[in-house]
Structure formats: structure tokens, C-alpha cells
């Protein structure tokens, strides 16, 4: 079921042209009047209040803004919100409506796979996508998939552990 949320930020846009977009974000319908140049990452953070979408580089390297658009992982700093009209978007907020953790989040906690946490949303999204396609990934496959994300704190050792723990949890579910 869609809950409708309407955003009007035309005040901020003054006389610059805007376009209406309508999309589903974490199963909520969102319509908004936006400038075409608005990055998807900024739109999700500032207009839809989804702070899990973290901005670390805005040039597609760090992966902190990684989300799912129509089932594909994308770096949301490299898309404009206007492109997602009619799309379905999923962010970390959509994984845990009631505050409980999904298996990937749980595994990251248990394996101490986060320190400052700024990269964590991106890693969770990447890990979920990996495990959806490949429930029992090898270390090499984890290396490849997670090479789109940078973590500056953990040295990745515990992230590998977390991915493997998450895979086990999901298998047992």
C-alpha cells in the first residue's frame, strides 16, 4: 500500500523551471516538484528525509550513497531525481520499518563491521544485492561486489565476516 507524501520545494527554486516527479520510495508514493538538476542523492536526503543516503564524494567512488533503483544498485549522486519518475527506490530506511534489523544489518553489528558508520548504508545495500543474486558468495566474489564501496575505518576484514554471517542467516531463514 502506498502512503502519499507530497513535496513542494518551489519556494527554494524561485523562478527556475521545475518538473513534477512521482515515484515510490521504500513503498511510499512521493510526488515532488523539483529542479531537473537536483541530484537523486540530495533529493532523497533533503526532500524525502532519508539520511541513510550518505554523501561522501559526489563523483561515484566512495559508494556511501548507494541505493536501489528499480532493483539495480546505483550511486545516487550520479543520477538526477528527475530521471526516477515512475521508479521504485529502496534505501536502508526501507529495510527496518519497526526498528528491527534485517539479517545483513544484524550481521554487520555482530561482526563489528562498522566503526564511524558513514559508509555503512552503502555497504548494506551492496551486500543485500550481492546475496540476493548469489546466496553463498566466495571471498573473491565479495571482493568484486564490495569494490564499489570504500570503508576508511574497518580495513574490510570484519565486513567480509559480516557478509558471510549474513549469508548464513539468510540461508537459515
Amino acid at each position, binding site marked *: 500500500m502506498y502512503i502519499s507524501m507530497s513535496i513542494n520545494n518551489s519556494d527554494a527554486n524561485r523562478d527556475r523551471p521545475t518538473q513534477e516527479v512521482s515515484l515510490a520510495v521504500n513503498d511510499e508514493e512521493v510526488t515532488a516538484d523539483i529542479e531537473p538538476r537536483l541530484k537523486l542523492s540530495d533529493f532523497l536526503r533533503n526532500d524525502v528525509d532519508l539520511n541513510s543516503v550518505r554523501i561522501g*564524494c559526489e563523483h561515484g567512488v566512495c559508494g556511501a550513497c548507494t541505493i536501489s533503483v528499480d532493483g539495480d544498485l546505483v550511486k545516487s549522486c550520479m543520477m538526477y531525481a528527475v530521471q526516477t519518475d515512475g521508479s521504485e527506490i529502496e534505501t536502508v530506511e526501507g529495510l527496518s520499518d519497526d526498528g528491527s534489523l534485517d539479517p545483513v544489518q544484524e550481521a554487520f553489528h555482530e561482526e563489528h563491521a562498522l566503526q564511524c558508520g558513514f559508509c555503512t548504508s552503502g555497504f548494506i545495500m551492496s551486500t543485500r544485492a550481492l546475496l540476493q543474486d548469489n546466496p553463498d558468495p566466495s571471498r573473491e566474489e565479495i571482493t568484486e561486489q564490495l569494490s564499489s564501496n570504500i570503508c576508511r575505518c574497518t580495513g574490510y576484514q570484519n565486513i567480509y565476516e559480516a557478509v558471510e554471517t549474513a549469508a548464513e542467516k539468510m540461508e537459515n531463514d
Partner: protein
Amino acid sequence: MSGSKASPVDTEIDEETNEETFTGKGLDRVEDHRILTGRAEYIHDITPEDCLEMGLLRTTHAHAEIVEVDAVAAEEHPDCDLVLTGEDIAEHYNPMPCGLPGISEWSLAKDRVHFVGEPVALVVASDRYVVEDLIDLIDVEYDTLEAVSDPLVARTDDTVLHEELGTNVPDDDEFVFGDVSDAFDEADNVIENQYSWGRISGVPLETAGVVASYDAETDTFDIDCNIQLHTLVDDTVYETLGYDADDVALNVPPDVGGSFGTKIALHRYCALAAMASHQLDGQPVKYVEDRIENLQGGDMHSSDREYLVRIAYDDDGTIRGLDINFVDDYGAYPRYPVNQVLKPLSVLTNAYDVDAVRYSYELVLTNKTSQTAYRGFGVDPHLYALESVVDEAAYDLSMDPYDFRWGNLIQPEQMPYKLPSKNIYDSGDFPEAQARIKELVEEERTEGGLLDPEIVEQRRENGKYRGVSYTVHIEPGVSGADWTDRQRSDRDALDDRDRADVDELPEHLRCEVGDDGTVTVYLATDSSGQGHQTIAKQLLADELGILPSEIEVEYLDSVEAPTEYGSAASRMAVMLSGAAQGLGETLADNLELLAADHWNVETSAVAYQDGAVEMIDGNDRLTRSELAEIDANFGDRLAQASYNYQHPATDVAAFDEAFVRKYPVYPTAAFAANAPIVEVDIETGEVEILKLYSLRDCGTQLNPTIVEGQAQGGLAQGIGAALLEEFPYDESGQPQAVTLFDYLLPSTKNIPEMQIEHSETPSPFTETGAKGTGEGGMIDGPASIATAINRALEPMDVVVDRIPATPNRIRDYVRDE
């Protein structure tokens, strides 16, 4: 006092939380849940109502006079809320405090720009997109000047950056410990070499951010910022604004997306956002640094050194003396961490027993962005240069570097060991560590292992050279504060200084008991991923005999908190544990007083026990929530406590010599023995770390999970520094790495499997036996990786003399062999 013996540690984590004590257990972090669910509030997420956004116009010139800033088009634009230039702020505010006297640095360049990325104007509007539109409307006319980007050229003063200073070398010093001349004259051999350490930095995933609000009624400022050491460096903000400390509250969010020392120098951003809000009658102003700003001109690069090192040694491999000289390129302004050039004195000879050491530095200014602190605080290049020259000496004697090192190690019976530079290593068995790491790697020499001789030979025939080195490194922990202003002191007077003049900063901790019995503890430090909230809960739960879940952790802003050092220099494990112990006792005493008063008995008739106060005769008991209620009726005096934990070295007379002379005081010596196994492709120069073995000892581990995380993360940064990361500048002062396509952060593809073992040699100087270990692998990783490359390329007589060891540089070594 004798060095305590190391005991091996079972790294398996005990998940039970209902045991008697929590400290020392791998208690799960309390920080995680909000982060994992996207609910953590980092500075980027804080946007008060009516908040405006600020952006900065940054110069693209490395060195130029500002002729004119024409901001009329921007100011007249209907979307523009404010433009300020260097001239504007000079009218109302002060220059930013520098790390050395004699230089004025304005938060917006006033007459001259000194590095690419230096802010020239600020613009405020409704959102960042509009701000950047307006920045494009500002025209700045420059007269370009010759830029100097090579520190060795800069020190000749042909082009002087700051005319008021008259030199590009605002600070230098020379220390001679022991009889250096004799050592070099008498030794059988002397070798000299140069080593270069490229400009690197922490590059946390979260860039700087600030939200500032001016309150016209009270004439005060509220500033939220992810600044590090907010209670220590708040002067850089309030002095710039021209206000008193009490009028400028700096507040750091509980979640900061990494700092590693780099965010110590965010005062420019704090001050500018505050000035903007001030000029706009208190409307909140937010600034978020973007990644290019951060990499190019974000005042966050760190050590950038050229070393000239001499070593004197006898034919039997005994090191007789060391002579360590270096130039450190601080960029355009000497900032707060000018004392990064001094910290290596705290580990002057690393794990070696050497009496005669000369140490000198020159701090040089160039047209580059200013240095800040980075994990290791200048020790990392020191250990790299030292271990490299040790390799050269060993090769010169045709000795196995393992044996050469072995023969010079400080022995366990020498503990505590006073360095020539007067700092003291508290405990540790370095020979055992070196032997143990070699033993761990031995299995790789068996059939099928990475160092199986047959495989090594096969690989070598294909141009792939494998090698491993065994090095022991000391991580100085728990810095004192008094020595840190040495370069701003009258150095000649230090020899006669009185011990009583030493002014250390304690660690402040306070707490209060809530109506429901919850104990809220307030940290005066800021955190950026180290798990301080978890550690504080563990420690205080043990002190108070309650559960961690009955404790909440909050943070104090810079006005509420006293001036204190905070989370830097691997301090918090030791300082927080000392403070928690004192705080627990104080709160228990206060609650006993309160109960005794309530029951109208002597305090000797009551006792605090497991979270409540009981009559010793067992007749009555008051819970924490009852005590809080009683206290509320008395005006909230006793259901709370406050404690200042004194720096542990102040109690140890042996440190007095270092204290009075303002030599770096670091009373804990965590240590690590590393053995990276590397493979070098000699045709392409590519280096792969196949596996990294590390044995680490940080004394008593307060939380082994967090210790392990710090070790792994530090080593990963060490790998980045050794092989990938660098901020080069061209001759005209243009930065070459301003994106993450060029400043290469290690990803999963660059970090090998790490096999880490821990031992525990408690510190005799600290309350819990813990030693600081926040910097760890970043300090010892680069040196150990460089020496492993040396071993791999031993057939070609290569000693890596530049960090990072890029493929191009490796080819430069091997192509003519």
C-alpha cells in the same frame, strides 16, 4: 617496577553480558543500531528550520595578490542572502590563531592567496545549488606570484610566502642526546641516506560540516560541527570571532563519520558559518564541504617529509648512534599540529637500545594547503625512515635484517625503559614479539605456503619476487598536553623549568542519576567511530555495579566542558578508564552521603552496593531512582558526580625530566610486530601484499572487539599510505590529486587477509593496565611494508626510499638491475 609479562589473548568474543564485569569483554557496540537503520544524525543531517547554506569561492592560484573581488553581480541577485570577502571579515573579526607566532591567517584570504583552494569569499543562499550559481557570478582579479611547492627549494627563501615572517622556515630545532659525535667517530661504519614520505591524509568518508546560529539576544553562538578536540581547539573559533570562550558553544554530534585527526583543523569553517549567521541576525547557516574542496584545499593534508638519516654501527651489528634530520612541508600556514615534528621523540629509537641520537627538523612553508593531524601524528614517517636505514646497515654487513634488529632490541629487563629523549616505555618484551611473529610466519614456508621455497623460486623465475620482513614498532600512547606548546614557548628557559610549572590537562567526566535510575554519563570528548559510548558504558557499569543498559551516554559542548585534550594521541582507553573509575567512586560517595542524610545516620552506617545504597545493618535500602527523587527535593546536589582524572604520567616521577623540558610525554608503549608477505612484479613494479601477519599488544584490552577493529583499520590505512595514497603538487603549486580517482583509497581489492594475534602486557602506569592503541597500524604499517618490499627485492639491492612505493617508483629501482 618491572615489565609485566605478556599473556596470549583468546580473541573469541564472550557475548554474555550478564557476567559480573563488562570491561575486557567484546561488548557489542551501542552506537551501531542507529547507524545501521539510517537513524544516526551526522553533521550533514542537521538542518534547523530556516537554515541557509553557505559556499566558498576558492582560488585556483597557488600564489597571487588579490587585486579586486567584484561580487556586485552576486550580491544584487535576488537569490543572494549574503556575500562576505576577506576585506569584509577583517573589519569585524580577527585572524585565525596560528600554530606559531608571527603570521596572520584570515579565514578568507584578504590581500594574497597562498594555496590552491584557499577561500576568498563566502556566499549564503537558500540552498547549495543556488550558492554555487552565485559563486560563479563573483569575479576575482589576481596578480599572480611565483609559487614554491618544493620544501627543499622553499627553505632557501628565494620566494617568501609571508613577508611579515620573512622566512619560509618559521620553526626548527635540534636535539642532541648522548655523545653523538663520539658514537659516529668510533663506530666501525656509518651510512647516510635520504627518504621521502609523500603528503597523505586520513580522508574520512564524511567531509567537514558546520551549522552555526548566532543569538542576538544573548550575543552568543551555537555551533554544531564535526570538529575533533572541540574542548581543546575551541579557541581557534572564539578568538577568530572575537568572543569569549563562554559565548561560543561548539557542539559535536554523537556520530562523526571518521576523522583520524584530520578534523582538528575545521575552525575556518566554524568561524565563517558563525560570521555569516552573525551578519544575518542569527539565521542559521550551514556549510558542508564537498569532496573536491576537502582533497584540494580543506586544510587537511598531513606529514610531507624529506629525511636525511645517518646510522653508525659496528661490524657486529650494534647500532652506536642515529642522526635523524628532516624537513616537513607544512603548506601555507603552520596550524595547530606543528608539534607533529616533535612526537617522534617519544619513540625516538623505536624498539632499539641506542643512547646517542641527534634529531633535527625544519618546519617549512610552501604554497600548498595547510597540514593538519593524521593518525600517527608524525611518527609514521619517522619509523619508516628509521627501519629503512636499519635495513641498509644490515645489508651493508651482509647480515640478515632479522638478526641485525634482534641484536639491538631493548630487553624486557630494561623496562621501564627511558629513551635518550626522556620518554619512557612502560612495559613489553620486544624480542619475544619479534621471535613470535617469525614463528607465526614459519607455517608459510611449508609446502604450499606463500613462502614455500619452491613456489618462491618458481614465482621469481616469472619476475614475481616475494619477501617478508619482521619488524617491531612502538606506538606511543596517551599524550600529555603540557609539552604540546613547546614551539610557542621560550625554549631556552626550559632547562631550568620547575616541575610545578607543568600544566597537564585532566580528563573530565560527569554523570547524573535520572528519575528512573538511569545514570547518564557525559563525555567531554568527541567521538568519530572509536566506540567511546560503548567503552564508557562498560567501564562505568563495572564501577557502579550496574548493567550497561542502565547507563546513557551524552556529550558536553565546549562551554559546558572544561578545556581538556580529548580523543587524540591514543588517549581515550586510558583516560576514560581512569576517569570512569574516579567518577564511579565519587558518585557512590555522593549517593552514600545523600542516603545517610535521608536516614539521618553517619555515612559509616551506609554502603553503596550494586547500584543502590543500603544500611549496613540491612534494615533499609534506597534505589537510584529513590535517591534521585530525594535529591531533587534537596536541589539536585548529590545524585550526580563530576571527576577530573589526572594524566597518569604526572604520578610517575621518572617522567619529570621530560615534563619540565617539554619533551613529548607518552606513558604507554603499545607495540606490534608485523610481517607482511609481499610479492613484487618487477616488470610492472606492482606490489601485492599477499597476507599480513601482525602481533599486537596494547596492554589490557578494555574491549577486544574494538581493539581488533582499530588494529585492522589502522593497518588498512598503513597499506594505503605505503602503496597508494599521495597528494602531489606540480612545480607551479597545482594539486594533482583532487578527486578519489587520483587520491587512491584502499578498497577490498587492495587489502589482504590479515592474521592478527594479540598479547596483553599491562601498563604499570595506568589504572586498568590498558595502553593507547588508536593509531596502531597506521604508525607501523608503512614501515613494515616498505621493509618487506626491501626483502623481496634484496637480490637487486633495493631499499625503498620513497613512500608511497608506487609501481613507477619500484620500476625506477629495478629497471637497471
